[in-house]
């Protein structure tokens, strides 16, 4: 018997013989991730950033807000200031470490909120169809007509620059993408046999949505959210760079890059270092997201 035939007509397992344990999706994903060196690197970067954020008070050698006029613009490698000091004599390493808190908060919060909202709207639109779908998708079309960063800038400009408003604006801007993704998944899932069977058996709608459809849209949502987090870090830092996000003197990578602009010729590290931090953490999320996608389904179009 050829292997193809074996696959097509598996020999019935005799009772009493132990079946191989069914593998959970999580273990399959983990096995895929473990083999992907780039994904592991991404995961390590993300973990490092998370640890920095959690342990900032322990790790930071100085108070990130403490100014020292006598030690302004000290170069990298200065004793006591490994990454130098900024235009106000503040320790760049400490600001960088504390900045990871802001970077992750302003990136993860909008991803979470827009993800939840998008999930709810996408489920509604995809499952119920009709006018509900029409209304939600037309609203999404309108939102898509704006370049995302421009809409975020405009919303924060109107509401007033602050960390909370930046989170709000980024949430609003990213909802349509999530909603559209979930809707397309739901449209495919609702015609699958297991959903039709559940409906035929009289399973209540809410249970079909939560137990059969929602659970199957989650993997692609997690991949998308991971990739979005990378982009969100860039967006959030861009808002701060323009003075629309986190306000000084709070240590924020985008704002730090902006503060160093005027001293770029004499002290390029003040701008370079926070930019590198944004770059690495974004890359970490991108690598992790790519790895998750490949581990879940390499043909996934994201």
């Amino acid at each position, binding site marked *: 018997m050829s292997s193809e035939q074996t696959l097509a007509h598996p020999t019935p397992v005799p009772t009493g013989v132990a079946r191989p344990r069914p593998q959970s999706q999580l273990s399959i994903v983990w096995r895929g991730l473990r083999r992907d060196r780039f994904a592991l690197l991404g995961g390590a970067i993300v973990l490092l950033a998370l640890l920095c954020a959690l342990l900032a008070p322990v790790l930071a050698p100085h108070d990130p807000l403490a100014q020292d006029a006598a030690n302004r613009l000290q170069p990298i490698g200065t004793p006591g200031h490994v990454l130098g000091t900024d235009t106000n004599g503040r320790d760049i390493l400490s600001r960088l470490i504390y900045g990871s808190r802001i970077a992750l908060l302003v990136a993860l919060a909008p991803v979470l909120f827009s993800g939840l909202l998008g999930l709810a709207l996408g489920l509604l639109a995809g499952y119920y169809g009709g006018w509900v779908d029409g209304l939600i998708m*037309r*609203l999404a*079309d*309108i*939102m898509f*007509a*704006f*370049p*995302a*960063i*421009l*809409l975020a*800038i*405009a*919303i924060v*400009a*109107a*509401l*007033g620059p602050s960390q909370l408003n930046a989170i709000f604006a980024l949430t609003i801007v990213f909802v349509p993408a999530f909603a559209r993704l979930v809707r397309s998944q739901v449209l495919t899932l609702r015609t699958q046999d297991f959903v039709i069977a559940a409906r035929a058996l009289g399973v209540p709608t809410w249970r079909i949505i939560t137990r059969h459809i929602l659970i199957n849209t989650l993997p692609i949502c997690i991949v998308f959210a991971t990739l979005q987090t*990378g982009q969100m870090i*860039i967006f959030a*830092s*861009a808002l701060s*760079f*323009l*003075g*629309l996000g986190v306000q000084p003197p709070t240590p924020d990578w*985008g704002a730090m*890059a902006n503060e160093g*602009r005027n001293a*770029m*010729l004499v002290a*390029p590290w003040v*701008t*370079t270092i926070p*930019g590198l931090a*944004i*770059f*690495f953490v*974004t*890359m970490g999320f*991108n*690598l992790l997201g790519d790895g998750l996608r490949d581990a879940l389904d390499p043909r996934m179009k994201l």
Partner: protein
Amino acid sequence: MGAYVLRRIAALIPVLLGISLVAFLLLQLVPGDPALALLGPMARPENLAELRDALGLNEPIVVQYLRWLGRVLQGDLGTSIQLRTPVLPLLLERFTNTLILTVAATIIATLIGVAAGVISATRQFSLFDRVSMILALFGNSMPAFWLGLMAILIFSLHLGWFPAAGMWPITGERNLLTLLHHLTLPALTLGIAAAAVTARITRSSMLDVIRQDYVRTARAKGLRERTVVLGHALQNALLPVLTVVGVQFGFLLGGAVLTETVFSWPGIGLALYNAISMRDFPVVQGGVLLVATAFVLVNLVVDLLYAVIDPRIHYGD
């Protein structure tokens, strides 16, 4: 085809109305009294009352929107609080500069992205493929404003090859050459992230096409590899790329706000940035409306091009 074009244009109307509604509502988001926000806390009560009247703030919001929309349709986007001039001519002049920057960045992104994507796909897993995909990852992870600052640091401040700011030399001749000299760094900065996305999409689209039967047939009948890749595969792989280029154009229009701020490029992005810091809301509102409209129109053109290029698509005729 004609019916499709008409239908596609008709479908645009609700989207454009939606854009206008969002732009209108932006001003309503301003906390407190818009007139006070526009004129500042030092404003005199009579000036506030006058502005409230001029803006129609005493009317119901639906009436306000319809009046505002009526004015917009006649080309009146209001008056800049800061400059005391009509918003539309001010923004249109700036918009041309933004278009120069965005088109240049789109050309750079498409040339680099398509070339890298095609070579990567035809030599999958080669050194070139690996390096270009790593570079694409870098490009996708780099904040454009920071890349711009680094470009200024290296190529302007240290090497002195390109100017750090502006569109024209402060003194001296204004010609194509001086424009290109000023355009190089901002266009590259803006284009690189887009090139990264285009490269990744071209590569995956090309890989899909290369495995198709007709490509294998073309090879089997002895056509040169060059003809197979450029004549058979690329032509079909370019369809998804075209959509991406359209979307990228909008992304670049948005990204221009940052690039223009970094390079002091006198476009709509810089105008918006200045207007935001001066709380000149009519300019912000007008700018957002103009950019979104341009984005929608570009996507319409891309959709129509799609119908022209792809012989498989027949739109409801």
